[in-house]
């Protein structure tokens, strides 16, 4: 075992793992984090905590992870390279690890133009692959990216994202290979609606033996409404998502959201997708239920532009 991560233990033992997402609130309301996390207790192995998803300011992922950790649950610290340079990222990793947060997801993040601060500087000191390398070197070599030794190096179980539905498709397996090479331990994919394309991608993954080198968690987001299915069909038409499901929205409607329905099923599930979030940020979804309800299944971080 490389780390003390609960997720690593589950995956290393050959079990299927279920993670779900908890988007931090847009305010200093820790009780919201607790409320969301409590709903997931007993249903998931780990909770993805997004980092200013869709470039909208929210409570920091680290702070929300800490609240969740203190509840005895296992957070996955998501971190994007959009908002922080390598100094800030490493200091946050030291801080998070000091509080028992030992699993993270390394992402590039949505471009600021999608969020509520489109005028912000986008940092991108590192890309996601360099980020993975940095976290791995911190763990395995005990060194900062700048080369100095770390006192008590943080041992993070390292996650990354993959989008089998983006273009150019022929690079999508190669890109996973690159993330494996960089040191990623597990992958969370973009939400899957186009099964044939996912299978084609998985075939490429197996052909190269990558599935034996990295744990792959497949992303699933049930539709909450017909409007959401139609919207996603529209926005993801070009990335081939949603077609399969737009006619089956009624089945999704009213079903338990996120990982609950699929816990320890044949596919590892993860409620992680961005199309709902894009709809939300553009105000194009019909609103169903209250704000909390929409957040419950609508706040997604990285499915849109995992990198």
């Amino acid at each position, binding site marked *: 075992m490389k780390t003390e991560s609960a997720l690593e233990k589950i995956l290393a033992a050959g079990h299927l793992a279920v993670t779900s997402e908890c988007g931090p609130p847009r305010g200093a309301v820790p009780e919201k984090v607790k409320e969301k996390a409590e709903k997931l207790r007993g249903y998931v192995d780990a909770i993805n905590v997004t980092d200013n998803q869709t470039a909208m300011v929210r409570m920091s992922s680290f702070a929300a992870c800490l609240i969740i950790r203190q509840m005895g649950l296992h957070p996955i610290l998501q971190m994007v390279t*959009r908002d922080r340079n*390598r100094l800030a990222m490493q200091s946050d990793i030291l801080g998070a690890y000091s509080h028992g947060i030992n699993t993270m997801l390394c992402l*590039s993040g949505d*471009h600021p*133009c*999608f969020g509520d601060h489109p005028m912000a500087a*986008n940092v*991108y*000191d*590192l*890309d*996601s*692959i*360099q980020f993975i*390398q*940095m976290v791995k070197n911190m763990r395995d070599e005990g060194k900062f*990216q700048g080369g100095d030794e770390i006192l008590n190096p943080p041992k993070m179980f390292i996650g990354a*994202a993959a*989008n089998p*539905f*983006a*273009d*150019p498709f*022929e*690079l999508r397996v*190669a*890109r996973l*290979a*690159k993330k494996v*090479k*960089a040191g990623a331990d597990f992958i969370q994919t*973009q939400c899957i609606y186009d099964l044939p394309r996912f299978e084609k991608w998985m075939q490429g993954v197996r052909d190269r033996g990558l599935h034996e080198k990295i744990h792959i968690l497949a992303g699933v987001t049930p539709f909450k409404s017909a409007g959401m299915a139609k919207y996603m069909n529209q926005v993801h038409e*070009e*990335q081939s998502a949603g077609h399969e499901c737009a006619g089956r929205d009624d089945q999704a409607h009213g079903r338990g959201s996120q990982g609950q329905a699929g816990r320890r099923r044949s596919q590892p599930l993860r409620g992680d997708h961005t199309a709902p979030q894009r709809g939300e940020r553009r105000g194009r979804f019909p609103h169903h239920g209250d704000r909390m309800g929409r957040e419950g299944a609508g706040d997604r971080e990285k*499915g*849109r*532009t*995992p*990198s």
Partner: protein
Amino acid sequence: MITAERKPIEEIMESIRPFNRILLVGCNECVTVCAAGGRKEVGLLSSALQMACMKEGKVLDVKEMTLERQCDPEYVEELVSAINQADAVLSMACGCGVQEVARRFKEKPVFPAVNTKFMGASERQGVWAERCQGCGDCVLGLTGGICPVARCSKRLLNGPCGGSTRGKCEINAEVDCAWQLIWDRLKALGLEKRYEDIMPAKDWRTSRDGGPRRIIREDLAS
């Protein structure tokens, strides 16, 4: 070239409002090529400003000059003869030219009439696009001659993010995905395998992050 776009006439008018005699200075280099601040644009702006002032009941005296290179002290020196007859200078050069005029004529207010945009190339008549960010450590040899620093919206060095769709960037359907272009080019060159080489974290000291940059050529420096 360095590209620029003229500022809105209202903003320019506001900057020169306190002055009656303006020295309007163009540049014969990049801003001429991108049709923002050459001799022709100097003439057009001069007329526009005089007409706008006339509407306000004010007579604006504009002296027009277009230098060979406004970023070069040798040519900026040519302003000496005209500078004393002006209350202020309005420069249509890029930011480099504006600053060179300001450096040479310390007592004279200088205002930019253009917004300097980027280092780019002409894509077709009337369209210019960014090509280089001057990072100071060129990677074009590794990326098939297409720059991910300047042309990827996230300046990713190791491949396309999940927002690449049919060759376009997610931020705007008008923007090409740099990594699609790089990949197409690597394939054309038979260099596909190169994609899987990890490009390490960049040392940004050679870029703006290392502070303002200079080049000193000992063999040429006086």
